């Protein structure tokens, strides 16, 4: 009867590499049979995923055989947007690109705009752009979640996601904020599972109760854009009850630092000593001393009169602000959509969890003032946030508010709370300042992206105009640490601040789901000037797949899939470390490409050599690196510090620092594709202040000298911008931005209404999108297995809206915003904030793209909300183009979208419906049976 063998052969060989189906970067075991990929599962030894793997990861096999994979370099032969291409050789492709770029570099490097999307090699792509000399480089952070990253770095020297994690083993109350089921995918699921297994409480604050929120013990279905109000009301309640960690605040934050409470050019700045160190009052002596004076316990309530001005501690300023009645639960409840008693109950639950039963680890440690602590004591409350709270015009301040709450409770870098992953924490001062001053034929003086500490660090010309095409680091968005990729096409099209020649994009679907107002983006990419030339004259694009963007480029450089290439997941970039270990990893070609495609990074190396870029050629002008693998092994950013930290030195025995090791990649492969080294026990917590950690970080090469610092509850860099807006200092903003800056650059976290609040009467509903967990950050829509899970995306309507409009199953709706109208299928969802509608993002596809049939549901009934979202705010009649972006960081304010809705008769297809684009790849198979080997 029983025909199966109990022990069938699983595979010929297991090749261990790193997943690239999202930003999580799990270790994977790729099972090979007869030279083909047979099965992918999680690598049990890997620090990120410990053997588990999500749906995307297992479905990677359908990415490697996807019919949408580009097959050869392409040259456009039809009009832009038609998708008509001719295959060309790599030599022709590279010579064409070099012939376009070389004259730009020699005359006006800024005329190249090079932006990379979901790039996991930013330390390399930015290095290339820096060598080219254009100021116009960034990756996708500006339209994703720079608010989260920047608020974290400015406030506490690290952020959520790749930079930190909850102490899953010890936390007892976990609060999860924000829409999106994302970063970082598997560790969050694993962590939630561990919390559930030991009965810890999970509370979610999210307008939509999907995914992680569905398993939360308590759900607060907050109204979008009001998280900051809720958080500051929690702060109000906790302060009022004295439920804050005074010792932690005194020792490890700038709460005791003295702030000039007078008027004039120093108002709101820290009182500093001659050496520039902020001063605090020593509790023992009452004297003003540098914050890091040996043995000092700073006085949270300190104040001092000096030079005619009163200086008061940050803590006094923040207590006065947040104890005020504007922050009481009653004052915010209606706007948040959460009853005041519920807010108070949450505050009480946080207080109980934080202070009733501290987590104590019997591990002595020494802080940066030389004080020996005999134990590590922490507060078992932890927080995590998804990008939902940050994709608003008030997102930076909201993320700052959340960090304020964490820090007041003493739950950052303390047992049971939120922990950084090496090479974080790292204070903002240890990060670079942005560089954008370009000269023909010359590399940029330093990296493009950085963290301004004041107006003098902005990337502006003497007349105040932006140096960058995306206006990053200008007065419009002073702290835009990741750039504004979403503004590149609109600005290049408008010639504001100037025109460019070549737009060079990598892995970013800017004609479709990655642009605000995709309709306008397509028009901008195809518009011709009076002379018949395209307004954006040249577009080079690299992608592995026939995405919507392909049709809008003139030259296509086809990339490999992630299983066909070398990569490094570097500590110089977005780390894969865990709180107790530093780690990095590689990808390597576990299968060879069966098409004429090349890894984009190797193509950049080739292009760099053809252009003679410094760092890419030797003294004799020949290529410095054979390919990206060669670069990964041999490039040194600083002496002994390269893209990979593991197996360095001639013998491969050194970690962190060491000479290049020619066998480094072999060592990674033998080790399962990654390298990990553990943080010493005494350095496991309190890392920003912990002497053992600081010394270890220097040994590892994260920085070159210990960098102890205080958490910045009060942000002095923000105050410097605010002072300029108030008229002080040599660097002055344009008049039309002055008032907005003064409000936006508040040095203490504050809440302001998101964009669109003034049109609430006409557009009463909030509209949101999120990627489903099974597709997050993935190229899932052409994936034969994943599209069977999420092939349609109805617009979900809450019960109140459903009933008010008399919707029924199978109905459609017309949805209108100030920017446009769409007509789409709807569905009822009760577990949803009553003022909010939403859909899955990027299920909707352009007909003809992704090798899908033109009648695929993604292409007919799938839709994007992007058509409703302007890259610019509605014109104000003042002649200025106002970006729909956070005024602090430039983060795209996707989630400020407001709409109105009406019921319409069922349609055959969603509107707008665009004509199909030509496909550069053949159609897929009609029947799939993926079994390889015999």
């Amino acid at each position, binding site marked *: 009867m029983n025909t199966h063998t*109990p*022990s069938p052969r699983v595979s010929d060989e297991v090749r261990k590499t790193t997943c690239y189906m999202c930003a999580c970067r799990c270790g994977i075991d790729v099972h090979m049979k007869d030279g083909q990929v047979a099965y992918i599962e999680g690598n049990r030894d890997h620090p990120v995923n410990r053997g588990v793997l999500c749906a995307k990861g297992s479905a990677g096999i359908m990415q490697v055989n996807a019919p949408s994979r580009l097959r050869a370099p392409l040259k456009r032969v039809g009009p832009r947007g038609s998708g008509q291409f001719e295959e060309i050789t790599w030599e022709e492709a590279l010579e064409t690109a070099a012939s376009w770029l070389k004259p730009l570099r020699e005359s006006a490097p800024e005329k190249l705009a090079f932006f990379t999307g979901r790039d996991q090699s930013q330390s390399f792509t930015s290095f290339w752009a820096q060598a080219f000399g254009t100021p116009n480089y960034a990756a996708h952070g500006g339209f994703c979640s720079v608010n989260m990253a920047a608020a974290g770095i400015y406030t506490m020297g690290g952020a959520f996601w790749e930079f930190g994690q909850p102490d899953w083993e010890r936390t007892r109350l976990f609060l999860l904020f924000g829409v999106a089921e994302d970063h970082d995918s598997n560790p969050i699921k694993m962590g939630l599972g561990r919390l559930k297994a030991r009965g810890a409480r999970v509370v979610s604050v999210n307008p939509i109760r999907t995914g*992680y929120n*569905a398993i939360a013990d308590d*759900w607060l279905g907050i109204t979008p854009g009001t998280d900051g109000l809720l958080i500051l009301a929690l702060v109000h309640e906790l302060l009022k009850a*004295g*439920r804050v960690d005074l010792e932690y605040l005194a020792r490890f934050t700038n709460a005791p630092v003295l702030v000039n409470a007078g008027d004039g050019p120093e108002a709101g700045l820290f009182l500093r000593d001659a050496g520039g160190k902020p001063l605090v009052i020593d509790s023992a002596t009452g004297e003003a001393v540098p914050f890091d004076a040996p043995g000092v316990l700073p006085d949270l309530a300190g104040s001092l009169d000096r030079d005619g001005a009163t200086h008061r501690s940050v803590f006094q300023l923040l207590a006065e602000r947040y104890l005020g009645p504007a922050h009481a639960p009653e004052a915010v409840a209606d706007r948040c959509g959460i009853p005041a008693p519920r807010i108070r109950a949450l505050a009480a639950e946080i207080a109980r969890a934080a202070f009733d039963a501290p987590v104590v680890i019997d591990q002595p440690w020494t802080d940066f003032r030389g004080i020996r602590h005999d134990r590590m004591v922490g507060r078992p409350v932890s927080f995590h946030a998804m990008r939902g709270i940050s994709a608003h015009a008030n997102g930076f301040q909201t993320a700052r508010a959340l960090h304020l709450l964490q820090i007041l409770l003493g739950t950052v870098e303390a047992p049971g709370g939120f922990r950084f992953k090496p090479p974080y924490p790292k204070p903002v001062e240890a990060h670079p300042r942005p560089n954008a001053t370009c000269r023909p034929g010359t590399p940029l003086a330093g990296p493009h992206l950085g963290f301004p500490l004041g107006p003098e660090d902005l990337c502006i010309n003497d007349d105040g105009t932006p140096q960058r095409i995306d206006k990053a680091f200008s007065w419009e968005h002073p702290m835009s640490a990741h750039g504004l990729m979403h503004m590149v096409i609109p600005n290049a099209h408008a010639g504001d601040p100037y025109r460019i020649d070549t737009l060079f994009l990598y892995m970013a679907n800017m004609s479709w789901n990655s642009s605000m107002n995709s309709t306008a983006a397509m028009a901008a990419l195809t518009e011709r000037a009076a002379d018949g030339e395209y307004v954006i004259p040249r577009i080079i694009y690299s992608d592995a797949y026939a995405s919507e963007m392909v049709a809008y480029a003139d030259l296509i450089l086809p990339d490999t899939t992630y299983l066909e290439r070398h990569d490094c997941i570097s500590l110089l970039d977005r780390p894969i470390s865990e709180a107790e270990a530093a780690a990095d990893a590689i990808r390597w070609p576990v299968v060879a490409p069966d098409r004429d495609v090349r890894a984009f990074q190797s193509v950049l190396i080739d292009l760099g050599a053809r252009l003679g870029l410094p760092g890419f050629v030797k003294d004799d002008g020949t290529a410095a690196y054979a390919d990206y693998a060669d670069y990964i092994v041999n490039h040194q950013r600083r002496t002994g510090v390269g893209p990979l930290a593991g197996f360095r030195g001639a013998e491969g025995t050194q970690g962190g620092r060491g000479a290049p090791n020619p066998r480094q990649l072999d060592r990674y492969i033998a080790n399962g594709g990654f390298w990990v080294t553990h943080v010493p026990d005494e350095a496991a917590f309190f890392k920003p202040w912990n002497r053992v950690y600081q010394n270890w970080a220097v040994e590892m090469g994260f920085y070159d000298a210990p960098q102890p610092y205080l958490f910045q509850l009060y942000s002095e860099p923000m105050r410097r911008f605010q002072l300029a807006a108030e008229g002080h200092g040599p660097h002055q903003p344009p008049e039309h931005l002055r008032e907005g800056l003064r409000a936006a650059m508040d040095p203490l976290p504050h809440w302001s209404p998101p964009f669109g609040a003034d049109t609430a009467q006409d557009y009463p509903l909030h509209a949101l999108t999120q990627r489903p967990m099974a597709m997050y950050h993935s190229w899932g829509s052409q994936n034969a297995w994943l599209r069977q899970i999420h092939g349609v995306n109805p617009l979900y309507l809450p019960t109140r809206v459903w009933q008010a409009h008399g919707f029924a199953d199978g109905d459609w709706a017309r949805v209108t915003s100030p920017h446009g109208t769409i007509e789409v299928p709807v569905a009822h969802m009760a577990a949803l904030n009553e003022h909010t509608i939403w859909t899955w993002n990027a299920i909707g596809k352009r007909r003809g793209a992704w090798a899908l049939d033109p009648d695929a549901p993604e292409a007919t009934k799938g839709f994007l909300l992007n058509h409703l979202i302007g890259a610019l705010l509605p014109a104000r009649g003042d002649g200025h183009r106002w970006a729909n972006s956070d005024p602090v960081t430039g983060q795209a304010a996707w989630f400020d979208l407001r709409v109105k809705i009406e019921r319409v008769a069922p349609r055959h297809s969603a509107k707008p419906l665009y004509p199909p684009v030509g496909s550069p790849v053949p159609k*897929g198979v009609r*029947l799939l049976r993926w079994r390889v080997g015999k």
Partner: protein
Amino acid sequence: MTALPDTTKRKLGLVIDLDTCVGCHACVIACKGWNTQVHGAPLSDTDPYGAAPEGTFLNRIHSYEVQPANAPAQIVHFPKSCLHCEDAPCVTVCPTGASFKREEDGIVLVNEDDCMGCGLCAWACPYGAREMDAAAGVMKKCTLCVDRIYNEHLPEIDRVPACVRTCPAGARHFGDLGDPDSDVSQLVAARGGFDLMPEQGTKPVNKYLPPRPRDQGAIGADEGDIDVLAPYLAPVTEGPGGFLGWLDRALGQLPGGRG
């Protein structure tokens, strides 16, 4: 018609925790990936890039919305695959003997060589847990990864079903539910594990762990009832000035503080 064994030596099965499942579909795809490679006919997909893609899956996740009377609506993610019933109607209905339940471990399998694709078993299964493969014309179903759990080519730790090995949230457990001392039996006892549709009389081996009560904070708090927690928010004093007075006293009590 095919006979079931009177008893089985073991009752291997899954315990699925509905309190923890986030609905990520990891188990669905891991199952698809493994089972298309090894046991029986590959799990086919018809029209995989077209208007109506339809493939064979041995495990699917369904999501349901629940609206309690006095609390916010909830979403429950519900993974479903063959439950390896003790009284499996899919076996007794099989005209060829292709469907069978193993005496040694209770796993319900299909011998594809004997399956003529009549589909009676799928009709008989009250859970809709069997799927006819359109390309192979044979009935496919969860095998509990019978080609993994005894597989000597796999390290011992990996001899679990693919869905269990991959589940990121740890919501899936595998073991012998016939042994009251097994980890899975203990888990079922501790968490009030239940049978799916017990009224069908199929005696499923797989068990589900119920979601823990949700939104207890909402019930009551919305009406202003937070007595239990109220002491945690007792004001230290009234007004900002008073707050600084409290702060002075509190700072004096810090170790090394202003004594």
